[in-house]
């Protein structure tokens, strides 16, 4: 989505952290977005030369992803937060179930077309572009979507 960055293959990634929550529990407490985003960003920061500053930087996008999940998540199932690490990059994945309305708005054409803001991920895309963080979405299964952000450790903060 942003830049020429070629994402490392999945095999090069190692698990860093995983968190699973009941979707209904997550969806009823907005405060959890901030808590979870900070938790994940702190771990992302640990891979950087300047952990505190990179945690602050990555928490902005992590939070936007978690908030997007909060607004889109369906009432049943679970939401998974995963962090994976390669040498140069930390990948954040958030997968969650969609409700009927969500399935329509997250269908592939809706994401790739349309103006920012009208599609569910518009704000997130705008932020990703501003901060130079590569984002992608996987909505290939019917009732689930996965949001993926690639934090390239050498970029973003100087």
């Amino acid at each position, binding site marked *: 989505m942003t830049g020429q960055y070629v994402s490392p293959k999945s095999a090069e990634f190692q698990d860093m952290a995983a968190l699973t929550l009941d979707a209904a529990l997550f969806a009823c407490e907005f405060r959890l977005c901030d808590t979870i985003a*900070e938790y994940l960003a702190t771990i992302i920061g640990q891979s950087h030369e300047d952990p505190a500053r990179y945690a602050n930087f990555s928490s*902005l996008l992590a939070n936007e992803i978690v908030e997007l999940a909060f607004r889109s998540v369906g009432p049943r199932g679970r939401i998974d937060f995963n962090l994976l690490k390669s040498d140069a990059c930390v990948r954040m994945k958030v997968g969650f179930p969609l409700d009927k309305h969500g399935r329509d708005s997250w269908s592939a054409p809706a994401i790739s077309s349309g103006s920012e803001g009208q599609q569910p991920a518009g704000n*997130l895309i705008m*932020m990703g572009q501003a901060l130079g963080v590569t984002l992608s979405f996987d909505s290939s299964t019917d009732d689930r979507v996965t949001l993926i952000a690639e934090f390239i450790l050498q970029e973003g903060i100087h």
Partner: protein
Amino acid sequence: MSRSLLSFSAEFNDVNQEILLSGRMRPQTVQEMASAAEVIRRNLDGHSNTVYVNTRRLTHINMTAFNCIAEILSSACKADRQRKIVIVTSSVIAWSAPLFRTLASDEPNLLVEIYDSAFYPGQTFVEDESFIPILRTQTKMTWRHERGILGRHGLRDGLAIADICCGIGDFATLIKRHFNPTRLLALDHSRKSLEYARRVAADFGLTSIEYTYGDASQMLLADNQFDFVTCRHSLQIFDRPDVLLRELYRICKPGGRVYITNEKNSHCLGEPHSESIRWTYDQVARLFSHFDMDVEMGPKSRRLLTDAGFDAIQVETFMVTNLDGDPRDFANMIEAWENVYAGQMAVRRGDPPDFIRRFRQGFKDHVLAALHPKGYAGWPIWAASGRKPY
């Protein structure tokens, strides 16, 4: 009520003509932005020249808040093209300039500036590279005293430690080697010092020190993280030491301790030529005070720590002297002081050559006292700590 509702603010500062945004701005809905939006809108409307929107203390934002601010700024830009709106961002908060720049591309009268100087009046001197050798020698000389003192103030093996305003990181590497902390974070606002610090740590094979570029008066660190927080020779260079102490208090765990060292420069002494030395160090104190720095702070430590809310306060003094190891080290330190104080600082204050000559003489006499076979030269330091109550 959610934490995000409570933890941000927008205020107008009349003196600087600036709207100050601060805190964690992560509202769930745009309605939660209402009062902040009102402050921004009202103060933009009320000013027709240049208005500053200061975001240096805005540590977090979400797109709900950002879009709300963006809309206000963009309509204010369009409403009056003569009015300039300057968004001031912090170099420490890495997301803020790139994010706010997205607004500037559409509005010619909206500018984004990155602010990373003038945190305090003496910053240009202190962050200058010429300070590096001074800090090196100072730490080498103070460590032989502090190693024991730190234990009396509660430092022991296995603690989470933060060294705030760490300079070139020598103290952090010493702590790492002698006290085996579970976590060690070292923060400073001088990129050159941090680069140096990272290099030194790498040379010693010390990999686990977390060096961070930050502003000690607004740290990007969570509350209640550290058992022992140190801030050495640095409170005295801030014009608002209380603001810094509040941050040190915040990151310290309840029951943990904050340890500070400060000087009283006018008490530097030497024999022979004690009068000339005394005169010069009196002048050092005045010179620093001209730049709003208080190098007489040492004996005020107890009051500062008490006012900041600490209890179980301990204060002790020690004197670094020419008899601590190699007298040449002491002499080097004084020469480095002379270089900066009688050099750029006195010149910046506009001191006349006669004054500077006499000012330098006291340093030269101090060096002589340090190197003289029967001489004695001293530099007194106040080490103090307080406990954050449970």
